[in-house]
């Protein structure tokens, strides 16, 4: 996940205190420039006009202040996107991240969290559920 510095030796209690927490909402507009730059990373051209790639919302994390992943490094284990409606270029979404659970499994911390995007009517447009791993002390 996004950060500038990566700390070592973090215990499960550092994360447990955030279990059940939700970040403040951030309004994010999906611009053509953002979508084109995202497409370009994969070496493909955007031939689908207003279509937004299905895994793109994960880059919204860089605009959100998620205190429990601040300055931490994680490995992705599972990821699931669910769309109530397709996202189009020009859409503005109110995004939050919810830390659903923090567990210890063998030598790993396992975080289950969900990024949610809502439209102006406060209806959920998409959710992005992530299972993240980090070596525990």
């Amino acid at each position, binding site marked *: *996940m*996004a*950060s*500038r510095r*990566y700390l070592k030796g973090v215990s499960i209690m550092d994360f447990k205190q955030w279990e059940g927490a939700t970040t403040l909402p951030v309004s994010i507009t999906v611009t053509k420039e*953002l979508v084109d*730059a*995202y497409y*370009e*990373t*994969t*070496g*493909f051209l955007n*031939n*689908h006009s207003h*279509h937004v*790639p*299905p*895994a*793109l919302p*994960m*880059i919204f*994390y*860089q605009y959100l202040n998620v205190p429990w992943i601040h300055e931490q*490094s*994680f*490995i*992705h*284990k*599972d*990821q*699931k*996107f*669910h*769309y109530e*409606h*397709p996202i189009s270029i020009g859409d503005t979404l109110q995004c939050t991240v919810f830390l659903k659970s923090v567990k210890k499994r063998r030598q790993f911390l396992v975080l289950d969290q969900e990024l949610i995007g809502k439209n102006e009517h406060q209806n959920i447009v998409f959710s992005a559920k992530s299972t993240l791993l980090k*070596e525990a002390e």
Partner: protein
Amino acid sequence: MHAGSIKSGDTLEPLHIEVTEEMVTKYGEVSGDFNPIHFDDRSAREKGFPSKIIHGMFSMAIASHIIDPYLQEGYRVKTYEMKFKAPVLVGETIRIEGTVKAIEKESMTVEINVSSPTYPQVAKSEILLHVYK
């Protein structure tokens, strides 16, 4: 390809993508994810990987291109799920294969396998496509 001609068991045209250091750097810039395990061999080795690895979410971004032909047919992604089984090393060429698992009147499920020269399965995935009206 026409939606009417798609049937369960159909295989999609596989993709072979070399994931270069330049691509990983660009993905880091676009995503804001600068975890050193993606950019520095020593940091990756400290975490138990043989060398620097690509972002899991980058492999998900790349793999989704296998369903591009269906997007041109009017399908849109309803759900996209991936389980990451092994790392992809920066510089490796990944192979993405897809099979139509089920098809109904307005939806279709595609199973995807991602492999690399190092691992026969680095990720497995399922995409549910839907035609919105």
